[in-house]
């Protein structure tokens, strides 16, 4: 049976990661290519890179990172952050990423999803969603609203409605980030995750709030997620991927072992 995926997320700015991996013995590596190799060997099922480089002209640095990562690891990885059009997608995919993640651009111009799916196949197109709880209302029936620009701009769009629409447009997967849970390390937003996951037919990656293995167990069972994104809990050496997988395995969650 299909395993639940554990996916470390690396934020990259100007070619280096903003949070390096800090091991228990305080060695820090910040090179995204080395980090990718480290997590590949440590049992990551997939990797996500977010390019948080502000200026457009520095994008080529990221493309170079993607190319070098692709030569180094033999598991799938996706690249997101600042993908604006089909050309941006093509550059990232040609450099060796399996998938591109689109977020703000898709909210502003939903047709980028269908264009991308048509050009490269749905399996390449991950819809990134940043979501905040605002309370149920006529405009936002689920109570969860889409926000963009790193959580600053409220879009007046219901998260559930948007997820369903994106699936119809051809998104192959959803990466769902809860702004409320993000960075807290208090656990994923389970209600939001199960709400979206149960109402779409495509796989869902839960993001935001992971602090300990129990959180992954919750989101992969009660939260109905197909995969879980992790960052600080592994970057700072608090847990290894092996430890997380061993815990999930002991709770009866199917994970990939013996990589």
């Amino acid at each position, binding site marked *: 049976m299909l395993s639940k*995926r554990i996916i470390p997320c690396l934020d990259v700015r100007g070619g280096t990661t903003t949070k390096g991996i800090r091991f228990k013995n305080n060695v820090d590596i910040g090179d995204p290519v080395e980090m990718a190799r480290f997590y*590949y060997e440590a049992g990551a099922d997939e990797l996500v890179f977010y390019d948080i480089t502000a200026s457009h002209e520095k994008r080529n640095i990221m493309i170079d990172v993607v190319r070098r990562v*692709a030569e180094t690891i*033999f598991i799938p990885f996706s690249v997101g952050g600042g993908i604006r059009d089909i050309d941006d997608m093509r550059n990232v995919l040609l450099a*060796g990423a399996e998938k591109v993640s689109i977020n703000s651009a898709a909210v502003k111009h939903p047709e980028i999803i269908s264009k991308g799916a048509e050009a490269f196949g749905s399996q390449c197109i991950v819809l990134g969603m940043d979501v905040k709880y605002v309370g149920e209302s006529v405009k936002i029936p689920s109570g969860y609203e889409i926000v963009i620009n790193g959580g600053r701009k409220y879009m007046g769009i219901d998260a559930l409605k948007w997820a369903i629409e994106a699936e119809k447009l051809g998104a192959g997967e959803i990466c769902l980030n809860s702004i409320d849970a993000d960075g807290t390390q208090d656990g994923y937003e389970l209600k939001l995750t199960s709400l979206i996951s*149960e109402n779409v*037919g495509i*796989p869902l990656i839960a993001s935001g709030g992971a602090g300990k293995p129990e959180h992954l167990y919750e989101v992969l069972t009660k939260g*109905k997620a197909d995969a879980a994104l992790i960052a600080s809990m592994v970057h700072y050496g608090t847990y290894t991927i092996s430890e997380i997988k061993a815990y999930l395995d002991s709770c009866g969650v199917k994970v990939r072992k013996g990589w």
Partner: protein
Amino acid sequence: MIAIIDYDAGNLASVERAVSYLGFKCIVTNNIKTIAGSERIIFPGVGAAGAAMDSLKRLGLDSAIKQAVIDGKPILGICLGTQIIMEYSEENETACLKIIDGFVKAFPPDMKSEDGSRLKIPHMGWNGLKNIKKHPVLSGLNEDDEFYFVHGYYPYPTDSEHILGTTDYGIFFASVIGFNNIIATQFHPEKSGRPGLSLLKNFCMWNPC
């Protein structure tokens, strides 16, 4: 030289990188002479069956692949490549290469897992193999090894002798098929870490008799 067949179907560079990493010479090509002169062939691909068959015919690669089958050259199909060697695909109602008897079916839409939750389509992520047959390319693999899949359709060979391994996703489907000089996987060995690289390496050294 290993020819990786280029027919505008997705990320072929990842196959090339994995084969090169293993130390074998390969070329991504749609040149019929290069393919005819190659020692072995990898037929990869992601995308839709209809567009893929159109490209293959337009480039004359359908005949090139069939010739390689007759010549007894080792051939590895991957993902869409594996589906295209069947007779017919439900995807876009496509007549395929008819190298292996059988057809390509869509996963049923309402599959449930053991806990009652809905099984998503595409089948995306890591899954294992069962009923692995003895085969030089599968040597060293076991049922604990997992491989990376991403597909909404699966091959359904008519002759069960052509099934070399199966995978459980709501139903058991043929995830490795083949006979004589052909072997084909529904998963992506080039994206499946150690066991995937091991399978690729086995293929690059395989001499079917």
